[in-house]
C-alpha cells in the first residue's frame, strides 16, 4: 500500500499532514466552487476530512484513488450543505453560466491537468459536453439540466454517464489525452 495512504488510513498524523500539504488547495477550491463563503467552504472541507479520518476502513486503494475519493467527499459535503440550507448563492449562479474550460482564467487548480482536460472535453460529443459542464461546473441537478436543455431526464443521466466514461478512457490514454 502507498505510504501516504497507509499513514492516512491508520490515522497517523503524518498521513493527514501529507494529505493537507498535497491537496488542501484542491479541496478548498472544490468547496468554494459550490459555496462562495470561504468560512462555510472550509467548514465543509474540515467536516469531510474529519469524517473520513474517523472511518478509515471506508477507503482502500492508491494515492490517486484517495485523492479522488476525498475530492468526492468534499464536493458532496458542500452540495449537501447547499441543499440542506438552501444556499444557492451568486457564485453558483455565476458558475452555472461559465463554460469551464474555455473560460479558464489563471490561476486554476492545476494548469497542466486543466489543459489535458480541455482537450478531452473538446473531443466529447457536444450534447454530452453540455450536460457534463452544467452538472459539474454549473452545480446543477439533472432535473435542472433536463429543463434547461429541454430533453428527458433519463437522456441527461445517460449523456453525463457516457461523458464521464469517455473522459475516463481519454484521460487514461497517454496519446488520447494530449491536446
Amino acid at each position, binding site marked *: 500500500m502507498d505510504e501516504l495512504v497507509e499513514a492516512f488510513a491508520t*490515522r497517523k*498524523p503524518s498521513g*493527514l499532514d501529507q494529505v*493537507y500539504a498535497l491537496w*488542501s*488547495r*484542491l*479541496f*478548498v*477550491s472544490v468547496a*468554494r*466552487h*459550490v459555496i462562495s463563503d*470561504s468560512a462555510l*467552504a*472550509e467548514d465543509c472541507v*474540515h*467536516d469531510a476530512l*474529519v*469524517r473520513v*479520518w*474517523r*472511518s478509515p476502513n471506508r477507503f482502500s*486503494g492508491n494515492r*490517486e*484513488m484517495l*485523492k*479522488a475519493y476525498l*475530492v*468526492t467527499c468534499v*464536493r*458532496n459535503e*458542500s*452540495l*449537501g450543505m447547499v441543499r440542506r440550507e438552501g444556499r444557492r448563492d451568486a457564485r453558483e449562479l455565476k458558475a452555472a453560466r461559465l463554460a*469551464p*474550460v474555455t473560460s*479558464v*482564467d489563471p*490561476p*486554476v*487548480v492545476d494548469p497542466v*491537468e*486543466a489543459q*489535458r*482536460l480541455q482537450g478531452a472535453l473538446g473531443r466529447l460529443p457536444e450534447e454530452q459536453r453540455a450536460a457534463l459542464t452544467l*452538472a*459539474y*461546473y454549473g*452545480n446543477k*441537478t*439533472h432535473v435542472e439540466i433536463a429543463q434547461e436543455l429541454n430533453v428527458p431526464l433519463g437522456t441527461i*443521466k*445517460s449523456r*453525463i*454517464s457516457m461523458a464521464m*466514461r469517455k*473522459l*475516463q478512457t481519454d*484521460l487514461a490514454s497517454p496519446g488520447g489525452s494530449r491536446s
Partner: protein
Amino acid sequence: MTEHLGEDAELYPLGMLDEDAARDVERHIASCSECAERVGQAQAVAASLAAALPLSTPSPALERRLRESTRPQPTAIRRVNLFPFALAAAFALAFLGLGWQSLVLQQRLKTQDVALVTMVHSHFNHVSMSPESANPVAAKILYARDGSWIYIIADKPGGSLHAIAQTEAGVADLGALGSSGETATLLVHPRDRIRSITLQRAGTDVASARLTY
C-alpha cells in the same frame, strides 16, 4: 446481490444524487467490487474536472482546526448519573408532544432531583439521526439550546453503541451508550459546544446528526 448501480455510478461523484440515493450507492459499493471499481473510476474523472476550477487557498485556521479535530483526545466530557436525566427526558418529550405547559409539572417536580427540574425547564431542540450504514440504528438527540446538555436515545441499538462528537474544540469521545432493554441512552454535559454527533457500532458509523443552536 442487488442490481448493479448503472448510471448512478457516474452521477454520484458529481454530487448529483440526493442524500438517499447517495447512501444507496455507498451501501452498494461496500459489497460490490465491480461497482466500487466503476465509482472509483468516476471519482478519478471528477477529480480531473476539478483541475480547471479557480484556485482557492485555505486559511491558516483550517489546518489548525483539522489538527485539533483529529488529535486523539482524552474524554473531555463530564459524565453524569443518567437515571434522573433519562426520566426527565422522557417527561420532556411527552410534554413537548402534548404541548402541555409545565405548570402542573413544576409542582410535582419541586421535591425531586434538581437536575431533573433543570432539564425539564430547559429550552431544548431535538433532531433525528440520519442512518450511515446498511445496518443503521434509529436514534434521536435532545439537546439544550445553550448546549449545556446532550441526551442521545437509540431504539433497538443492535449492539454496543459509541458516541463521537465533533465539538468546537475538536473531536471528543462521548463514550458508550448505556443499554436498558430495547433502548440505549447517553447523557453528557459537554465542556465545548457540540456541532455533530456520530454513533458507531463496532467502529463503523451507523448514524449521525448535526446540531444547530
